[in-house]
């Protein structure tokens, strides 16, 4: 890579804030937060960059790379602000995206509302054609019927067209024929075909994914071009790359063609941030815990690689419930997101139980203590009541905390209803939200066949350091890192991402008559496809990771298994059986004899080799010895002992490497506060991270 001035910029456009991080050649960085400019998000980015340029007196010509992640595509899907889009599908299958799974995501609610399909019925058209499950033509492509559809598309004034035909993941021939016929007639229309966007079996998920791509494509393409042009105009003549949902970089061209891959790119940056920190400290099993104002997100990272999945859901409409959103089948960093943030509202249900969220007071009106009109108690209000936050040290600009308002809200909505003191109610709110996050982390681990024993937590985002030690205790973990820059973690994470692309395709074969030649050819094609994307951004050395998802014949859920070694040969079935059996045992403890194994979905991920970050030596108890200076203490509730004790207050900026803080303590900084219970201690590390451990090792879970 060419070195101009060795500067790199990460830009994360979120729902509320746009975070800009400027990294220097020596690895140090500066950051700024500006409000997101929803109408033209590039303005916020430019404004943020300009302010860094001014304050730190740098030249944009010295910037090597700008890496960008954005919620723009996600928000367009949630807010239904996309192009006028049509879906063209196989005759007989017009309503796949509307009839969904035919299930109800909530079993006990008579009034559930199913998500409205992204493309409504009148905008869905069918072509006479049909491909079978083996790629055979069951019904030839009917050019006449296609022509009629194109007439309707023209008359309807559509800007973008999604094409999803049955079994196109096996044979894309008919989809491509339709695309060509359409492009010849209407060259200005933007076209997405499902065999390119997401060649995975299961029509509901694939059609929905291609619809999402088509829906946001014109918007994203024009945004990306505007952003690149504006940056150039201002002198940033360096390459611009996008971060995708799988946690890698892609070119502007790829992003403009497959914008659906930008969905969830911000959270992906957070997971990379945590993965990077973990590898600096040589930790190979990490729980990434990001808590903001509205939600908490938890991801698992092993060997510096976040867990990935092939499908996920966006725009959940009901309490983050599985099934209440839109499925998107693309490779994604897997995380669980629950309605547990600082702004999450506490209430009491008919069982006299405290419930938290998913409703959030957000930043407007905000927690009751903000005195901006919020009257319901939130997690932040409970933290204030319990002494974990304090008006004098609360960092957010322009917000003064008013403890009386927090107490009044807790009293009215929780304490009085449960005949408790305000303090007890606040403890209840904090405990319930901590338990919710704990359970979410456990479920997520179970779903991935993992046991959290021995995992290290990396806590970031404004809310996480307040709750991290309690989660550590509840989950039985031994170690938590609170990195510096936790407020802009995603944008920093962008700068650590490799160029990568994961190509996925469904291909069905069993161990009875394993089609090893077909599998070899498929893996080759996937590799070629993935590498082509990566080569748009880098000439660097690449690593290739191949994976196949398998199950016992008759099961419905597949286990991803990494494929080592070279091409398959006639002994492939035995080899596959061996690796699958091992993986199955890891998940469920026990393999099953004598049942055939099916391979369903295949993927190849090509990524550029990223130089591993320099290893950091851990400063542990023995080496420490620099006592932190603290200002006068204040009373804080400590959940480990169930008592209120005096907690030391320590300014994080006053810490040096080796500074040791014994709990109970509050380590305060501009964007958050780290809470230590009486059994915890923190030692500041060389990079400014706090490493928190248990003082006693009496198994104090």
């Amino acid at each position, binding site marked *: 890579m060419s070195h101009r001035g060795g500067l790199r910029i990460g830009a994360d456009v979120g729902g509320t804030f746009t975070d800009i991080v400027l990294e220097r050649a020596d690895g140090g960085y500066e950051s700024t937060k500006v409000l997101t400019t929803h109408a033209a998000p590039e303005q916020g980015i430019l404004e943020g960059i300009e302010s860094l340029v001014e304050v730190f007196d740098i030249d944009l010509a010295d910037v090597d790379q700008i890496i960008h992640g954005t919620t723009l595509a996600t928000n367009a899907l949630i807010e239904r602000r996309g192009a006028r889009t049509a879906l063209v599908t196989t005759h*007989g*299958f*017009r*309503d796949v995206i*509307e*009839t969904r799974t*035919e*299930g*109800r995501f909530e*079993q*006990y*609610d*008579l*009034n*559930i*509302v*199913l998500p409205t399909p992204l493309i409504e*019925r*009148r905008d869905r058209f069918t072509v006479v054609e*049909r491909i*079978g*499950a083996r790629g055979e033509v*069951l019904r030839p492509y009917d050019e006449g019927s296609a022509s009629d559809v194109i007439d309707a598309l023209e008359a309807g004034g559509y800007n973008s067209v999604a094409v999803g035909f049955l*079994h196109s993941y096996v044979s894309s021939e008919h989809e491509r024929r339709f695309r060509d016929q359409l492009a010849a007639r209407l060259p200005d229309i933007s076209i997405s075909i499902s065999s390119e966007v997401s060649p995975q*079996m*299961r*029509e*509901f998920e694939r059609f929905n994914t291609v619809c999402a791509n088509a829906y946001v494509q014109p918007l994203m393409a024009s945004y990306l071009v505007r952003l690149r042009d504006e940056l150039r105009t201002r002198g940033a003549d360096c390459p611009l790359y996008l971060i995708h949902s799988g946690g890698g970089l892609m070119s502007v061209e790829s992003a403009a063609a497959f914008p659906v891959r930008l969905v969830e790119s911000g959270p992906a940056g957070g997971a990379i941030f945590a993965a990077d920190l973990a590898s600096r400290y040589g930790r190979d099993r990490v729980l990434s815990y990001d808590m903001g104002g509205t939600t908490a997100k938890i991801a698992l990272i092993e060997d510096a690689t976040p867990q990935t999945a092939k499908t996920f859901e966006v725009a959940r409409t009901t309490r983050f419930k599985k099934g209440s959103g839109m499925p998107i089948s693309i490779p994604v960093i897997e995380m669980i997101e629950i309605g547990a943030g600082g702004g999450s509202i506490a209430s009491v*249900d*008919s*069982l*006299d*139980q*405290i419930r938290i969220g998913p409703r959030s007071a957000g930043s407007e009106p905000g927690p009751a203590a903000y005195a901006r009109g919020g009257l319901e108690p939130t997690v932040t209000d409970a933290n204030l*009541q319990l002494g974990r936050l304090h008006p004098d040290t609360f960092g957010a600009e322009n917000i003064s905390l008013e403890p009386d308002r927090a107490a009044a809200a807790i009293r009215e909505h929780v304490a009085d209803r*449960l005949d*408790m003191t305000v*303090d*007890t109610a606040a*403890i*209840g709110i904090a*405990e*319930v939200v901590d*338990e919710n996050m704990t359970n979410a982390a*456990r*479920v997520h681990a*179970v*779903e991935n066949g993992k046991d959290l024993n021995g995992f290290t937590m990396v806590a970031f985002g404004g809310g996480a350091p307040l709750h991290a030690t309690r989660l550590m205790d509840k989950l039985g973990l031994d170690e938590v890192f609170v990195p510096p820059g936790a407020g802009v973690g995603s944008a920093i994470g962008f700068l650590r991402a490799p160029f990568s692309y994961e190509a996925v395709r469904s291909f069905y074969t069993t161990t009875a008559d394993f089609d090893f030649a077909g599998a070899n050819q498929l893996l080759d094609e996937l590799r070629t496809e993935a590498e082509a994307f990566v080569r748009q951004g880098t000439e660097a050395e690449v690593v290739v990771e191949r994976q196949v998802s398998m199950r016992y014949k*008759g*099961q*419905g*859920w597949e286990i991803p298994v990494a494929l080592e070694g070279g091409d398959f040969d006639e002994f492939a079935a035995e080899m596959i059986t061996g690796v699958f059996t091992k993986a199955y045992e890891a998940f*469920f403890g026990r393999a*099953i004899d004598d049942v055939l194994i099916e391979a369903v979905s295949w993927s190849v991920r090509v990524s550029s080799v990223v130089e591993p970050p320099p290893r950091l030596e851990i400063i542990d108890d023995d080496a420490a010895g620099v006592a932190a200076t603290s200002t006068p203490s204040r*009373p804080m*509730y400590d959940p480990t002992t*169930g*008592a*209120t004790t005096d907690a030391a207050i320590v300014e994080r900026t006053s810490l040096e490497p080796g500074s040791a803080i014994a709990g109970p303590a509050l380590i305060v900084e501009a964007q958050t506060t780290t809470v230590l219970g009486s059994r915890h201690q923190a030692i500041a590390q060389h990079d400014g991270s706090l490493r928190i451990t248990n003082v006693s090792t009496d198994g104090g*879970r």
Partner: protein
Amino acid sequence: MATTPRATSSAVHNQIMWNRLIAVVEEQALTLIRTAFSTSVREAGDLSAGVFDREGRMIAQAVTGTPGHVNTMAAAVGFFIEDIGPERIQPGDVYLTNDPWKGTGHLHDITVTTPVFRDEHLIGFFASTAHVVDIGGRGYGPDAREVYEEGLRIPIMKWVDRGELNRDLVTIVRSNVREADQVVGDIHGLAACNETGRRRLLEMLDEFELADLDALASFVFDRTRRATLGALEHVPKGTYTNEMTVDGYDEPVTLAVTLTVTDTGMHADFTGTSPLSPWGVNVPLTYAQAYFTYAMLVALAPELPNNFASLEPFTVSAPPGVILNAQDPDPVAVRHVLGHFVTDLCLGAIAEALPDVVPAEGSGALWNFQASARPIDPASGLPPVEMLMFNSGGTGARPTLDGLTATAFPSGVMTMSSEATEQVGPMIVWRKEIRENSGGLGRQRGGLGTIMEIGPAEGYLFEFSAMFDRVENPARGRHGGQDGEPGAVYLDDGTPFASKGRQTVPGDRRLILELPGGGGFGDPAERDAEATANDRRQGYVT
């Protein structure tokens, strides 16, 4: 703030533990879904999992797709304690049964129960149920005349005795079922998910420093009982009745209920219901009770978790000899078809009392089918394949919302992808689309059914076991809403096809299924003009 000893926050502490217990059973259920071979378990959530106190009272149950397991499962553990005998319950044991009257209503559901010991004291049980791929006998269908023909019946027995697998029983199961590996695999899966639950529970008790579950169980039952009785106050005391006629197997079946609401609960009596059928569509009373209880909970207290105390106030009775009170050895294999209508039946009874809550009738019973794909030419070497598909019509319109299109209710079943179905076997789904005009009109419109066209792949024909209801008797509208369209079944050349019983779909024909729509709610003339216009724009109504 003042020091807060833990005692003052014991309510919060109990709540945390209760939530944890629910998380434990959810994890237990998830393990089962992930490993199950049975299509209905993994696609339909046809399973349940729960934790019980030492007396066999259910403390927590995972929310799964099957209301039919709500009460049946809750009662099952009591039978296990009784039949095994308290003195024979030992650490390391695992028990099982598929007795329809002690488990969940038909032989295909296997219930596995595992006792939990802590410091050598019995503190409770985990139990789980799953629908297995096959249980022998005639195969899945309504054609048996007695339960003996429906397959292997395993009385309550030890599957594992103090850590030792009962190999004799394994051999008996293996030699009595088709797909023995999958069935035995699923039984092991049930035992494994209970074991997951047991381990997690012991970890939890360590963490919270509890010796047993007794205090927590009382807390859960007290809170739930209070909330359930509170919810019942929304229905004025008194007696409510309803009747509903559905197609039945070979003759129409009338389902009748009299609900009595008192201070302490609700009782459903099914006197007036049609007599037993000679076919396997009969329903054990506990299964009918489950769909009655489910109906009342969704209407009155949807946020209450299921446990002994939330179910206790809901009781049932029926005279002997009615189709909702099957007795050993009546055939009961497809008890779900009529069982699913019990929910609409009971909701209908309280519709006048709760006019803002109860929806119109929906398509109710699922349009599931099993197609046995057979080679047309037996010498062709093509293998026979069993294919199962779940499909749902429309639900009834709600007081303020339209019904749901192509959605299961009261079952929580999901359909399978057409592409996945075609990957598994020689079936081609030629069409699966919204069936226009099938929802009953009303101020709120009934959910639409779908229209499906399916046929065998080349070289095959289908032996088809049909079990479709609401072909003769549509879902009724409510408060002036119109009825939904009834279903229809025929071959693509117009040949009629019976909605019940075994028939053949020839290799060159396609079967067409028009699934019923839900009933409408309220006078169609009162429908919002924009909603009516949108129905036209989208072609829901033409």
